[in-house]
């Protein structure tokens, strides 16, 4: 296959050889993988992709892997579900849920980025991988490092949900809980990455890592029958996913696999940590960092590295964004579970709630196709539901006790 042409600065265009580098030495702009699209045209086709494995690796030629896939062979190709019950509830014609709450192996879309980053770490000869994480990335790096027999150092904010801590520790990494916000953890990791020769998936491996997210966008298009939807609502933390879904659709267009991309992109964030949506609402490309305060901890990044680009995607596509309160987040989780039988984490609650508000405000028209991006699993963040969900019936093991309980239930106002 055609290897990518090294890296390229997204801002000034300067070229770099393929290396574990993430920042342009000259303008500090982020580096991106530079593909040879001309050579891929006619080689990567709908047919060649459809003949691939039922995983994200059916798009391997559009991912920055030179050799064989080292870890995460079964990541991706998650269900795209026609969510008619949710559509009926919201008064819409066509809603789809792209369900990465069941992504293999750690139940979030982060498996897509990590399998690329860890494979790349092996290609570059690293024996240790690391990350700063709000939880999902921690789970995924620890799992894929275990599979790849690499050492791993995982840095998290000390107040992370217990479910996410356990679902990291089980893979036997070195877990470092830092007393501080994610942004503080991230800054620390940037300095650690400068000092130790580790593959920090979200620091020096960012150009490769972030490309994995494109597979989420490719899948949406392929699963819709090689069509782009009218609207995509995406949860935003660092802001990378929304830019990579957009890039994925543009790449498919460049390769001639689809027609023009007319999709409008929408950023979903919590009110307690919504700097990207604030940019969109204020129509400014200047990001003002915030101190996060939200139950959606996986989205609690107050200083998103890709905030500027996420804002640009929403704006350039004709989309928008929406903030959601903690109450709305829980309501969003419950709404998706109640209508579609999908249990998503708080970040998914943010996305569902934001989509609902955008539809109710008339920003997203009810008669066009809408994709809601569900990126993580609800079993990781049950804490926020504890107070809401205790209405089960407790009885003795007798039929009469059940009869009585049933009668009581029916007599209660619903």
């Amino acid at each position: 296959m055609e290897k990518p042409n090294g890296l390229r600065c997204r801002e000034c265009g300067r070229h770099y050889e393929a290396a574990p580098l993430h920042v342009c030495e000259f303008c500090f702009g982020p580096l991106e993988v530079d593909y040879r699209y001309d050579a891929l045209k006619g080689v990567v086709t709908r047919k060649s992709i459809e003949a691939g494995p039922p995983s994200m690796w059916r798009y391997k030629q559009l991912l920055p892997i030179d050799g064989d896939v080292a870890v995460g062979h079964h990541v991706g190709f998650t269900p795209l579900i026609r969510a008619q019950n949710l559509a009926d509830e919201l008064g819409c014609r066509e809603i789809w849920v792209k369900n990465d709450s069941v992504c293999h192996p750690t139940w979030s879309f982060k498996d897509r980025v990590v399998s690329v980053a860890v494979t790349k770490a092996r290609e570059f000869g690293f024996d240790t991988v690391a990350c700063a994480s709000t939880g999902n990335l921690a789970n995924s790096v620890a799992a894929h490092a275990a599979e790849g027999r690499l050492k791993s150092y995982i840095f998290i904010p000390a107040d992370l949900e217990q479910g996410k801590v356990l679902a990291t520790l089980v893979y036997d990494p070195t877990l470092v809980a830092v007393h501080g916000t994610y942004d503080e953890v991230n800054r620390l990791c940037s300095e650690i990455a400068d000092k130790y020769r580790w593959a920090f998936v979200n620091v020096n491996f960012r150009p490769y890592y972030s490309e994995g997210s494109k597979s989420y966008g490719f899948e949406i298009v392929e699963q819709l029958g090689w069509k782009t939807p009218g609207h995509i609502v995406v949860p935003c933390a660092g802001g990378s996913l929304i830019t990579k879904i957009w890039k994925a659709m543009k790449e498919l267009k460049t390769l001639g696999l689809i027609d023009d991309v007319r999709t409008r992109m929408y950023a979903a964030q919590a009110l307690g940590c919504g700097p990207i949506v604030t940019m969109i609402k204020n129509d400014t490309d200047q990001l003002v960092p915030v101190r996060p305060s939200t139950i959606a901890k996986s989205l609690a990044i107050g200083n998103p590295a890709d905030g500027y680009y996420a804002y640009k995607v929403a704006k350039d596509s004709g989309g928008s964004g929406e903030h959601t309160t903690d109450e709305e987040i829980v309501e969003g989780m419950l709404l998706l579970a109640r209508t579609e039988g999908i249990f998503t984490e708080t970040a998914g609650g943010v996305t569902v709630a934001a989509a609902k508000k955008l539809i109710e405000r008339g920003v997203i028209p009810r008669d066009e196709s809408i994709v809601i991006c569900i990126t993580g699993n609800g079993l990781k963040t049950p804490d926020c539901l504890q107070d809401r969900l205790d209405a089960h019936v407790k009885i003795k093991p007798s039929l009469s006790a059940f009869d009585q309980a049933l009668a009581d239930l029916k007599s209660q106002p619903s």
Partner: protein
Amino acid sequence: MPVLVRIPTPLRALTKGSAEIQGKGETVDSLIGDLERQYPGLKDRLLDESGELRRFINIYVNQEDIRFLQAKKTALKDGDEVSIVPAIAGG
């Protein structure tokens, strides 16, 4: 007022490979002026044509993002630690 300045890898070619250097200044802005005198070329890498901090650079004074303080006007005192950190992804 000497302060300790941490230099990220992309800028170390300008500081002869040093990861930590000493600088002087009443504010972050005047510190950048001092760094430019010591290591010519550094200022252009930190500030854009209009003199604003480049979009993808974060500066911290004692671990605090200067955008939460007084940005480039943030005051410095003896012994402060200033970190220059490129924006990084996450999640």
